[in-house]
């Protein structure tokens, strides 16, 4: 069964003669547990597509569903709940909150979840342990390296055990050694059942994915061929909002 479906998604900016089509009639389906790389040149519409998939950018046309939920039929606050329960975000620029230490940054998605502080800390330490940073939990973001920041961002994205991980150029600011470490982490997460959707320019990174969506001028030019899945598939959100 298809977990994520995009049906003729269109996103236009501006109006009248100055309308710019960021993406046009993009349709695809992704099964739970897939590892998908979205590729294309700059301005192809990859990031717009990812933001739509992240429930943060309302398409001007088309329907986007996740696990049968018409995401853009939800109200703004329900979409915030959807993001918290279904999605983990990994940003290219890490986007860690500078005044919170590593474990606090990882705990951020749990802030509005009704759990005890100790439970939240345990979950955050597990996520940090997963990315190998449990010893740096009390450091501030400016006290760790770029690769470590990306791993903290991954820990933050997975702390609430979301079924979908969205990564926007996750290795864009990393050297080759850190790139490999991060990609291996994403691969392990995917093997553990998380659906990973990653925007990347890098063919090397895309090689870790089992499927490639290729975009050009806002259109999906290659839907990719899904490989059979052997790993577990995660669908239901692990936690509920407070």
């Amino acid at each position, binding site marked *: 069964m298809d977990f994520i479906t995009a049906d003729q998604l269109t996103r236009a900016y501006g109006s009248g003669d100055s309308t710019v089509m960021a993406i046009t009639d993009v349709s695809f389906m992704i099964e739970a547990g897939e590892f998908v790389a979205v590729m294309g040149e700059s301005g192809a519409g990859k990031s717009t597509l990812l933001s739509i998939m992240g429930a943060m950018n309302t398409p001007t046309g088309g329907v986007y569903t996740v696990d049968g939920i018409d995401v853009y039929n939800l109200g703004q606050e329900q979409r915030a709940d959807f993001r918290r329960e279904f999605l983990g975000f990994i940003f290219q620029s890490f986007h860690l909150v500078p005044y*919170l230490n590593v474990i606090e940054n990882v705990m951020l998605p749990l802030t509005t979840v009704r759990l005890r502080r100790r439970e939240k800390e345990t979950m955050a330490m597990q996520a940090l342990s997963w990315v190998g940073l449990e010893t740096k939990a009390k450091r501030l973001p400016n006290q760790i390296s770029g690769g470590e920041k990306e791993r903290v961002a991954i820990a933050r994205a997975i702390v609430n055990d979301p079924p979908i991980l969205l990564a926007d150029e996750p290795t864009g600011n990393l050297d080759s050694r850190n790139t490999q470490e991060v990609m291996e982490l994403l691969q392990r997460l995917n093997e553990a059942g998380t659906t990973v959707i990653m925007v990347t320019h890098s063919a090397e990174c895309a090689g870790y994915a089992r499927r490639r969506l290729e975009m050009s001028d806002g259109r999906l030019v290659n839907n990719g061929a899904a490989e059979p899945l052997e790993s577990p598939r995660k669908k239901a959100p692990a936690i509920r909002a407070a």
Partner: protein
Amino acid sequence: MRIKDIAIKNLLRRKGKAAFVLAGLVIGVATVVAIISYVDAMTADINEKLEKYGANILIVPRTDNLALSYGGITLGGVSYEMQEIRQAEVLKIGSIKNNKNIAAVGPIVLGGVDTGGRRVLMAGVDFEAAEILKPWWKVAGAYPRSNQALLGSEVARVLGIATGGTVMVDGQPITVAGILQPTGSQDDQLIFTDLGTAQAMLGKSGVVSMVEVAALCKDCPITDMVRQISGAMPLAKVMAIQSVVKGRMETLGQFKKFSFGISAVIVLIGGLVVLVTLMGSVRERRQEIGIFRAIGFRKRNVMQIIFLEAGIVSFLAGLIGYGVGILGAALGLRLLSDSHSSGVIMDPALAGSALLIAVTVGLIASAYPAFLASRMDPNDALKAM
């Protein structure tokens, strides 16, 4: 990790901005507190002086006078149906509703006496009450006992009698126990004896000419007490001696109103400082708010952060503002007031009000920035990074 942890950590990171917001509110709150404390201290000072002032209620027999004056020249009056105050009536004053506010009741009997060819006014008083009613009296010698007299300074000068001497009153020798130092009032021209002695000598047993009452008017309006005494003594005319004090209180009231106006403007400016600073802060934190929204914070969660930050700073501003205001009032009293017998009053209600004003202004001023922050589009915020 809770919302309040984020708010506190952000405040600690942006100490400069937090201090700026704090300063804006502290100035407003401190000004209000200082002005209120200063005015309260001045009011207390006036009340205290009023109590020291002595008699502030005068009871005289009710008369119907026809004033005879023309062109500003008073030609005298005609009194008729003159009622005297019976001494037993005076006791009723102690039964009025506000009797706890009565500091002293001083009945006085007046009458003219002959002192070896000179007519002098004699006043019989209760000397115990007189000590409270006339605190400005300074006596050379001692207060008189029965059949002794206290001479006003002018009487002593004219009659040439010193303390320990004898004065002949209506042919009876009376020992002068003391002489009143000059008061600048009619007292200088009187011979004072105790009430019983004067009543006997003047042939006015059981009646008094007037009654002076010292009322503690800090806790009750003097007009209430006048009304109550009038009710208890329907045949007497009861008057409040309050014109000077009233005038001063009115001036203070006007100053209070003006000061409140100034304080309101300063508090408003403090609120604007909070508003402008928080607006800037929200713009600076666009990226951070975008992250919060992207990872599932609801709008109200973002508003909670802004309101919490404003609430914490405002609460601190209330506390500090109260302290600074009290110090300011104390300094103001020391520098601006020539008499400061009453110090600054530490009023818990004012402290609570200071906190309430600070937190209310802080929260109102942060409402719009919080609203803007909550409406921030996460996609736009993240794209702007």
